């Protein structure tokens, strides 16, 4: 039986039980090993901590272990017979917004933790806003520490209502609420006897069964050309293959296609892979397309269907998350990457700064510092082939690069 891959992201602070929850998922799926447990037991003892500190599993860097905080995105893996899971575990504090955004960019599911004793707090809202901005298809809200509120249905329902009221302002498609105790294991793998009033899924069941096949956009055919394959050998004398990853849509052998930016048309002669020819290719497959006509196509071009094309734009508006200590400036020039295109761009205007705790748009504040999110207008040196981010994560996203330091300084979602 073949299993699928699910990527999810968690965010949280030291006290909301996130490490315990991840530790529990890893432990219950038998993904923590004896030598790892032994190593963190020893480290916990050396630090004079009473209990085994499961956070040491994910906080791998010296600085993180010294300061007792997660600085960076940590990736953890576990699998069940049904699925393989990749967790992007990120710190939840506002100063680590950039890490939350990074973890969220490829996730199918966002797991948000709420402490049942505290209810919906600023950090909960921040995570939900980021999940919504990054268009994570599914959201699961785990209301944790239910054991500390006598497994009260009333408290669960109240938090659910509060969260739903707030989430109504966001564009979140699918939200699931699960009352859990990560520490005691209630509703994690097994249904809790302590909460007979809860008739929904356990967290494990949800993660194993949430429908992700349609998370990919299967409608709009987009194939950014990544690399040209020319074997220069006798057997493949005229072989000219356009390799890349199908980012959306389904390409079939014989389909009529259009090449951007030239606008030339041709047909798919062959969808090639090292395992042989395919009849169709869909996301996120890496394949090589061969066309019937000999055209001038290079990296950065995009193969699409003639009746469904992206917009060709040099002026774009984006929601930008700023990553760098150096401020974003109007009139500033940056390198920009979009699909397989590299260009330069000019920041024309900052329209407003978004308060990621309240969603308030401040049009008078254009001082953009690290971890701020704002709406900006850019002018690029080359045309980009774009879709709105809400329709297509991969043709709707860009990164900005500082031309002096080469650092990635911002990430944007095209509106």
């Amino acid at each position, binding site marked *: 039986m073949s299993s699928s891959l699910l990527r999810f992201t968690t965010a949280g602070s030291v006290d909301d039980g996130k490490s315990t929850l991840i530790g529990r998922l890893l432990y219950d799926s038998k993904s923590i090993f004896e030598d790892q447990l032994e*190593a963190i037991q020893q480290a916990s003892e050396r630090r004079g901590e009473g209990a085994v500190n499961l956070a040491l599993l994910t906080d791998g*860097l*010296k*600085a993180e272990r010294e300061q007792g905080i997660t600085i960076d995105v940590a990736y953890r893996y576990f699998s069940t017979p049904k699925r393989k899971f990749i967790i992007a575990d990120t710190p939840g504090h506002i100063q680590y917004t950039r890490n939350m955004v990074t973890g969220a960019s*490829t996730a199918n599911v966002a797991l948000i933790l709420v402490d049942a004793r505290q209810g919906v707090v600023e950090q909960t809202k921040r995570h939900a806003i980021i999940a919504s901005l990054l268009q994570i298809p599914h959201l699961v809200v785990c209301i944790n520490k239910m054991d500390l509120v006598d497994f009260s249905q009333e408290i669960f329902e109240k938090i659910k209502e509060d969260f739903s009221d707030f989430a109504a302002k966001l564009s979140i498609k699918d939200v699931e609420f699960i009352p859990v105790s990560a520490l005691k294991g209630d509703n994690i793998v097994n249904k809790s006897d302590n909460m007979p009033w809860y008739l929904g899924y356990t967290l494990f069941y949800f993660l194993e069964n949430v429908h992700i096949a349609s998370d990919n956009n299967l409608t709009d055919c987009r194939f950014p050309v990544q*690399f040209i*394959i020319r074997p220069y050998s006798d057997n493949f004398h005229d072989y000219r293959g356009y390799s890349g990853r199908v980012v959306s849509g389904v390409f079939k052998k014989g389909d009529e296609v259009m090449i951007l930016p030239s606008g030339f048309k041709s047909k798919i002669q062959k969808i090639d892979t090292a395992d042989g020819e395919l009849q169709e290719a869909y996301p996120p497959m890496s394949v090589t397309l061969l066309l019937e006509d000999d055209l001038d196509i290079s990296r950065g071009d995009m193969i699409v269907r003639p009746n469904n094309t992206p917009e060709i734009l040099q002026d774009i508006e984006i929601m930008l998350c700023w990553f760098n200590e150096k401020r974003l400036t109007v009139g500033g020039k940056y390198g920009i990457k979009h699909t*397989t295109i590299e260009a330069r761009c000019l920041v024309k205007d900052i329209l407003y700064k978004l308060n990621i705790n309240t969603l308030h748009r401040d049009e008078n504040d254009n001082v953009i510092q690290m971890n701020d999110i704002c709406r900006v207008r850019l002018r690029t040196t080359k045309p980009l082939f774009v879709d709105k981010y809400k329709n297509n994560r991969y043709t709707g996203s860009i990164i900005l690069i500082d031309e002096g330091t080469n650092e*990635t300084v911002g990430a944007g979602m095209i509106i």
Partner: protein
Amino acid sequence: MSYQLSHLKELESESIFVIREVMAQFENPVMLFSGGKDSILMSYLAFKAFFPAKIPFPLLHIDTGHNFEVTMTFRDMWVEKLGVKLLVGSVQEAIDNKMSVEEKGFNASRNALQTYSLLKSIEDGKFDAAFGGGRRDEEKARAKERFFSHRDEFGQWDPKNQRPELWNLFNGKKNSGEHFRIFPISNWTELDVWQYLSQEKVPLPSIYFSHKRNCFVRDGVIYSDSDFVNKRPNEKVEEMQVRFRTIGDMTCTGAVLSHASCVEDIINEISISRVTERGTRSDDKRTETSMEDRKKLGYF
């Protein structure tokens, strides 16, 4: 039609994307090759990425001189099969030229000395990107590693100042003299690697499978008896039924007791194993952050 890839196919596709991206963004890449399963997997994925063309960059083996004989035979066979060029960076040569100093004592290992030869090979070959087979599930410092990992002109890693990686946009920009380490199989776990190698029927060196070998035990690690490891007087050599879960230098790679004689047996064994594969690596046990410390200096 469900249009859903299996997790192994999705991992394969991600790795191929990363490998092709490197060819597009860099001028002179090289792929590190140790003869272990991860580098066999990585080079196999490189073969798939450029098919039907040949792999457009050489493989580089950093040779400590303390190798298992069979992995060397395998290496030469594999390189010929792929039709790829092999470069060798020799630790012995660096020691002979007095550029590296051999460790002394019972736990002496050339593991850390690989860093010098690796950085020298990268510099001599003017390589601007070096693929490594590191996986994030292997070790806690590696869990923080990027697909495209920047190295300064001294080959150093700065874990606190890494570039964020979002969607599938990779930033390989650098100044001259700097290079990148590329980790295309970051998201694979040990089990994924074995399941995939089994599914694809990829050949492997025989020491991954159960065999009889003269070994001795030190600090709970089973070492193969060889001229490269100094035994203490009380360390007794015995014939054991073992296999290797990782293959590194003979001086720091431990064996596990095992009867697993084929890939399917190995998958079963790993599925129920309670110890990580690096549990057999004494190089990781030196201090709590020994991997991070070595990586900062330029280790892979």
